[in-house]
Structure formats: structure tokens, C-alpha cells
């Protein structure tokens, strides 16, 4: 944790994006998390992604629950809307906000306690309804704020800092998201921003419920030998299935040739996302295949990262409810009240 404010001074070469902001303009207050917390890297990745995508900060709503992870929206996008909800209730509040104003970009920031324990039901229903949002779980497998008890996502057999072995099965949020109908499912690692930033960018551009499980080591309570969420363990067992390149074709020619077939997927805004497959037999648009692949790796103790599943033709809650294109909060009384004649007619039809 740091007491001094981050100096306003910036590097002389810092550039502005298309909407006139520098990367620094997307920052929030100084983080009060422990030094070295993975969550701060995720905040930095969100800042980078929003800056690169030229997002106007006032068109973003960031919602969170309770916990270390849920504190982080204070540390990025200081000029955006924010709502710090009751523990585990971010998905329902976000769903309501999304219904009221479908035009904003919704960032749901949660942790393994907030989403896999107290908020598990809320998580499940947000996914199955297909609420258009970027749902980020900052997953460290431990309750950091209460000094290091295992969380619901801690692997069975992993050791706590005090040496206790976890006997419970972990909640597999990726598996659940896939099963419950999330249309963009990815896993990243806070220690690898070159992978994480494009994953967040892909999720922001996605047309439905996008879920990203980000493994984020807790340096204070879960970064020791025997932990399966430590920097060292994750680096040793990380296996990426794909890499998202948003690079232009012209740059591609100059870029280092690397293995992997490139597939191009349509985005709702008409652009195309370019995905480089790193596993030849892996099809990221095959949901059942993705579920099997993730499970198979998990059984070997490996951590599969990258974009695990994407439905290029995803739809969202508004599509299912058949709401109007205009945000509901922008509808006036004239739009909403059909008038006495219509009421009389309706009443008449029921007589």
C-alpha cells in the first residue's frame, strides 16, 4: 500500500488515443492493496485495454461486490460510473443496470469469494441469462482480507501458508460458465499482460456474457511453495491455447512468424478478431470440445489459458427479452404511456 498520490507527471512521449485521452487518464486512485498484488496488474490491464480501444470513460459502468478484488474498481477508470454492491450481489445489480441502460459498457469485477462462494447463484444466473458484460473474476484461491483461508476455488491438495492441506473440491468457474451459456470464456494470468490485455479487449467487444477468470496471485497469503496460485506455480503450469492478435495484416508480415493457424472471427461492431491457435486440435468455437479440453488439462494439474470458447454469433439478455434498441432509461412518458384510448381498448379486450 502506498500513501503518496501517484505523481501527475508522465512520460514525454505518452500519446492520446482517438477520444483524446492518454493511458494515464484511465487510471483511478492509488491502490491500497498489498504491494505486489496481482489485482493491481489486472487493473493496469483494464486501463490499457480501455485506452487502446478508445473507450470514453463516461460510457463505462464498473460494478463489484466485496473483497480485495472488489475494491479495485476504485483504482482504475476514475472518471467512469461505479457501484460497489453487497457481497456477491454484483451480477444482479449489474443486470438491473444493464436493463435500464443497455448503451453502457459493463465491467463486473469480482473475486473467487464473491463469485464462487457467497455469490455463486448470482454468477450462475448472470451467465445463463447472457447479460452483456465483461465479468472478471480476480482469482487467487484465498481469502486475503481475512488472512489466508482457502477460498472455494482453491485446488484440492494445495497447501495454505500455514501448511494446511485443502480437502475440498474447487468450484470450477470456467467449467460452470461454459455449461451455463457464457458466450466468451477465457482465462488469463495477472503476470502476463501481453495475453491478458487482448483477452479483456476481446471481452469488451463481445456481444454477450463474457467471462474471464484471471489467476491473480495473493503475494501476502498464497504465493508460497505448495500453493497452486503462486507466481512460480502458474508460470510453470501455464499452457495457452490461443493468442489474440488485433494487429493489422501489414504489421503481421513484419512480425515474427510463429506457429499456429490464424482464425478470424466476426465481432458485433463489424470488425474481426484474429485468433492464433496454439493447440492444433483446439477449436475455440466448439463449446463441448472446450469443456473437455479444460477438464482434461485440469486433471493433469495444468492451467489452460487464453480464449477458451467464443460464440461469434452471441446474443444477449436484451435480445431474449426483445426490448427496444433505445435504452429504457431514455424512454419518456410519451414512449411508455400508450394513453387513455389504448387503455380503454385493452380493457375492452379483457371484458
Amino acid at each position, binding site marked *: *500500500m*502506498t*500513501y*503518496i*498520490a*501517484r*505523481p*501527475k*507527471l*508522465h*512520460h*514525454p*512521449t*505518452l500519446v492520446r488515443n482517438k477520444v483524446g485521452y492518454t493511458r*494515464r487518464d484511465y487510471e483511478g486512485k492509488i*491502490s491500497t492493496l*498489498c*504491494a*505486489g*498484488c*496481482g489485482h*493491481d*496488474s489486472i*487493473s*493496469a490491464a483494464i486501463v490499457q485495454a480501455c485506452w487502446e480501444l478508445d473507450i470514453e470513460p463516461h460510457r463505462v459502468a464498473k460494478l463489484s461486490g466485496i473483497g480485495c478484488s472488489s475494491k479495485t474498481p476504485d483504482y482504475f477508470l476514475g472518471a467512469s460510473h461505479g457501484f460497489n454492491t453487497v457481497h456477491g450481489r454484483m451480477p444482479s445489480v449489474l443486470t438491473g443496470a444493464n436493463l435500464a441502460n443497455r448503451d453502457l459498457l459493463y465491467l463486473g469485477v469480482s473475486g473467487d469469494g464473491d463469485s464462487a462462494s457467497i455469490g455463486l447463484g448470482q454468477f450462475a444466473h448472470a451467465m445463463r441469462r447472457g447479460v452483456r458484460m465483461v465479468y472478471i473474476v480476480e482469482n487467487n484461491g484465498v481469502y486475503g482480507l481475512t488472512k489466508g483461508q482457502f477460498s472455494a476455488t482453491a485446488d484440492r491438495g494445495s497447501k495454505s501458508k500455514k501448511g494446511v492441506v485443502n480437502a475440498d473440491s474447487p468450484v470450477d468457474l470456467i467449467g460452470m460458465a461454459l455449461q451455463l451459456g457464457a458466450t466468451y470464456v477465457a482465462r488469463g494470468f*495477472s*503476470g502476463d*499482460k501481453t495475453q491478458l490485455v487482448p483477452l479483456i479487449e476481446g471481452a469488451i467487444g463481445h456481444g454477450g456474457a463474457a467471462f474471464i477468470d484471471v489467476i491473480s*496471485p495473493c*503475494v*501476502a497469503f498464497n*504465493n508460497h511453495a505448495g500453493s497452486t496460485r503462486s*507466481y*512460480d506455480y502458474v*508460470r510453470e503450469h501455464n499452457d495457452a491455447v490461443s493468442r489474440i492478435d488485433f494487429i493489422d495484416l501489414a504489421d503481421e508480415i513484419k512480425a515474427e512468424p510463429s506457429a499456429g493457424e490464424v482464425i478470424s472471427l466476426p465481432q458485433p461492431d463489424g470488425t474481426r478478431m484474429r485468433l492464433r491457435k496454439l493447440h492444433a486440435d483446439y477449436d475455440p468455437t466448439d463449446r463441448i470440445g472446450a469443456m473437455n479440453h479444460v477438464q482434461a488439462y485440469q486433471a493433469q494439474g495444468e492451467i489452460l489459458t487464453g480464449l477458451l470458447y467464443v460464440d461469434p454469433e452471441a446474443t444477449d439478455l436484451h435480445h431474449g427479452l426483445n426490448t427496444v434498441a433505445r435504452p429504457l432509461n431514455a424512454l419518456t412518458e410519451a414512449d411508455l404511456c400508450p394513453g387513455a384510448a389504448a387503455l380503454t381498448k385493452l380493457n375492452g379486450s379483457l371484458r
Partner: protein
Amino acid sequence: MRPTDVDDPEYFHKVVDCQWACPAHTPVPEYIRLIAQGRYDDAYMVNWVSNVFPGILGRTCDRPCEPACRRGRVEEANTAKPEPVAICRLKRVAADFKGDEVRARIQRTAAKNGKRVACVGAGPASLTVARDLAAQGYSVTVFDGEQKAGGFIRTQIPRFRLPESVIDEECNYILNLGVEFRGGQRVDSMAALLAEPWDAVFVGCGAPRGRDLDIPGRREAAADIHIGIDWLASVSFGHVTGVKKRVIVLGGGNTAMDCCRSARRLGADEVKVIVRSGYEEMKASPWEKEDAMHEGIPIINYHVPKAFVLEGGTLVAMRFEIVKAVYDAKGRRSLVPTGEPEVTIPCDEVLIAVGQENSFPWIERDCGIDFDDYGLPRLDAKTFQSSTAKVFFGGDAAFGPKNIITAVAHGHEAAVSIDRFLHDEPVTKRPPPHVNLVSQKMGIHEWSYHNAVSSDLRSKVPWAAAQKALQSIKVEVELGFDPVTALKEAERCLNCDVQTVFTEKQCIECDACVDICPMDCITFTTDGEEADLRTRLKAPATNADQALYVSGPLKTLRVMVKDEDVCLHCGLCAERCPTGAWDMQKFLLQTTMAGPACRDAKPATTRVVTAA
């Protein structure tokens, strides 16, 4: 790229841009912190040890430190007018607000060692040698043609920039160390001096000859044409108390600026500075040009003097040819006439300040001291030793006209040479600097320096009212910072001497430092050659003068690369580092001066036995 060797004192020294740029390597951030704490005596002493003349330099220094100051680069693209910390004027603050205790803290002299050293000239170089050696027990005698010590500091710098009391005070600190001063005794024969029983001789006689301008009319109008430095000396001693109404000053250096501002004060209605080169290339410091223009003195550039115009035997004007700067393929400049008709500018008096030259008429060419084709003594560039082993040179007398702080630096080095020479140790072997690197960590997020970065802009030094200032040559123009402004200005210092020290085996590559760094200085990436690495960093490292701090391979086989260029030394990387891989450590470098520390043979330590 090879991992950076931070054990080499040069690496961190170079990060402290101001100290690196200072010829005397004054630990600038160290004294600025002391000023911020109101510890003016301590700040003065840091300066006194290093640059000998804090009060004088705090008003007159050429400030090589300021263009080098990191603050100037840091403010680029952040403020409308990026400016360095007002280092020079903060030095003056230390001198202005110090207490009388300073006198008591000036080092005592060691027991006399029986060795006698003669210093020729009582300028900054000689006085530095005298101070360094007198304190070590040498019997030093300083000769000067003038009655009072100070050399060019006293004769050439106008009183409105440097009051005489300041010169007296700081010269006396040195002379009171038991230095014998023989004022009014100009040495006019080196052979005679060498015949006397001196163990060593130091020549610090400056570059006393002002360059003249041999163009038509020079001889005829001689009564109204003066050589700048000689004229300034006459003004300084009160021999000249007035000028005619219209004065032209020829030349673009700091002497020209002093001449024009002095003429303005001596009653000239119209003073013009006319210079051959362009305004930008003028040798004068930018602030001295600004000060002159602020006093209503125009600077006319690209005018080459052609002739003095006389009417009825008196000077009435000067004729100039108008030129332009043309650069060849190698970037060398030449001044080419534009073909426009010559310009005549009326004047009654002309001051020629077109440069200074060395002159050693008093050194017999057969007395054993070799001179080069330019009339400068042949010296070893590091030891300042001449071809006669016991004769050393320094200041302007050594390598031509420079400035006070350079003279002081020469003095220190020459004193080291003399000390080693008189202890039968080879002078070519130079003592390493004294270096100290110590962590500033006080608590979890507490440092022993103020790491919050001020966003204040550079404060202006207040001036005496123009009316009052221009009326007398003796009224000091700059008033100096008051303590409140001094604190504000001191807080602008980035504490570049508090180094970011990286210990690679501690690093877990969590990226916390990368994320928090406000200036995007830190990158973890795959190794490469420097030129390639500089393009691959989080922010491009385009300033090749500033080093990259590169670690050895980390666990992921990547390396940590830190671009030193615009680091704020705010310590946030170290605050956010969970393992202490980053630490803020204060780097204090002091050049080794004459005395036991500069010698190879160390005196045996005497054991003090005390009664139980």
C-alpha cells in the same frame, strides 16, 4: 545487453545529472534536501567543502548543472515551459541564511608539515589550492597584483551581481586558514620564483588579456574604445565612474552582458549589444541574455563590425556588415554576408568584449616550462602538472578561459597532485572518489527523504525595483529567494541521488513496479542489444545520453530494463515491490581531496588507551 554494473561508482554518479555535470561534482540533491529542512549551515558546509565559494557561485555560477537537471526533461510535455530546478539560486539561499556557527565549523588546519607552496594569482583556482593544502598543514603563500584576493571574481563581476561583502567573506574564510596573502605583489618572473625555496608552485593567474578588434578607426578613436575586462576592472575599482550617452558593446559572451548592464548603470541612455553570431549561438548564458534584455538593452545579432566612424576626430558611429549563418554538410557554421548594404549605428563609446586570451609574459620560455603552439602550458590533463615537476597550473591559466566552478575543480585536482607529489607518490595515479550507498527505508512505506513529487513550476528570483537597481552600480539586482520560496523550489528537486537499486534474485516478476511507475520507466522483456532494447520498452528510450539499467536474466529468462532518463525517484516502484527487489538507496559521492585520503600510504592508526 550486459547487466549493469552498479558497483562501478560512475553508473549511479551519472544518474545524478547535476552532480555529474558539475566540474567540482558538488552533491547537489544532498544540499537541496538540507535547505528544504531549513538546515542552511549544513547546506552551506556541503557546498563549502566541494565548491569553496557558495555565496559567490550562488550568484555567478555558469550552472552547468541546470541544463543537465532531470527536472527539465521530466517537465517536457507536462508543462508549457519545462525548467530545471533553480540549483544555483538555492545555493545562494544556503549562503544567505546560514548562521554565524559556520565560521566555527570551517575546518581547522592540521599541524604544519613544513612544506611550502606558492600560488600565483588569488583567483578561485589558487584559493582552492590554498584552502585544500593549508588545511592539511602546508604553508601556502598566495601572490596577487591586486590589493585584495579574489582575482577575476573581484575585478570582473559587477557589484550589482555580486556584492563585495560576499567576496570578502568567502576569500577570508580561506585566508584565515593561515594562508599568507601577498597582495599588491605581482609575480613577474617565474625563474625568480623557482629560485626561491618553494616545494611546489601553483599557477592560477587566469586568462588576463582581453581580445582586441583590429579594424579601421581603432587607433584613431582609442580614447572611446575599451577592452571589456579591463574596463570592468576599472569600474570595479572605481577608476571609471561614467560613460558617454550612446554605448555599443561588441561580443556575445557573459563579459559583454556584464559590460552592457554596467554601462547602463553608469549613465548611458542607449546601450546596444551587437554580436556577429545569431542570438541562439551567443556564448552568454541564456539567463544573462534575458537579464540584459529585461533592462532594456537590445541584442542585435548577425552584425560583423567593419569600422569605427570618426567625425572631427571623435567617435560617432560604427559600421557593420550584415551576415547570415550557413551550415555545411557537416553542420559547421559559417557567417556569410547577405549582400545588404552596411549598417551604420551611432555611438559615443565602444566596449570590446569579444573574448579573452591567456598570457604568460612573466614566465621565461627557458625556465623549464613547455608551452604549446597556442601559448598554453603543456600539462597533463588530469594532474595539471607542467613539464617542470613541481609546477602545476589550474583555472583559466591551464586550458584557457572557462568559469569559476571549473577553476575550483582544477584547484582541487591540482591540490591532490601537489599533496601526492610532496609525499613522493606518483601524481598520475588518482584517488578514487569516496562513495556511500545506503538504503533510505524507514518503515513499510516510509523513506528518509520526501518522495512525493512537487508539481510546482520554477520560482522566479525577485529583483530590486528597476528604478533603484539601474541608478547605482552597487545595488544588487537579484534579491535571492526568501525561505518560503526556497522551500518550494527545493521541493522541485527529484532527489536523483536516491537511487532505484534492483536486486534480481529477489524479483518475482509480479509487474507491480511496471504498473505503478508514473513515467513508464520499467519494462520486463526478453534481452537484446541496447539499440534494439531501447525501442522495445514501455516508453521508448530515445535519450541515448541516459543509461539503461539492465538486470541479469530473471526466472522467466526475461530481464528488467529501467530507462533512467525521466525517473522521478519517487520510490513508488520500491513501495509497491512485495519482496524488496527494488530499494531506494542514497548515493553520496565525494571527490577525494588533498590529504591522507588521496595518498596510497595510510598513516598508522594510533591506538588510544584510556584508563578504565
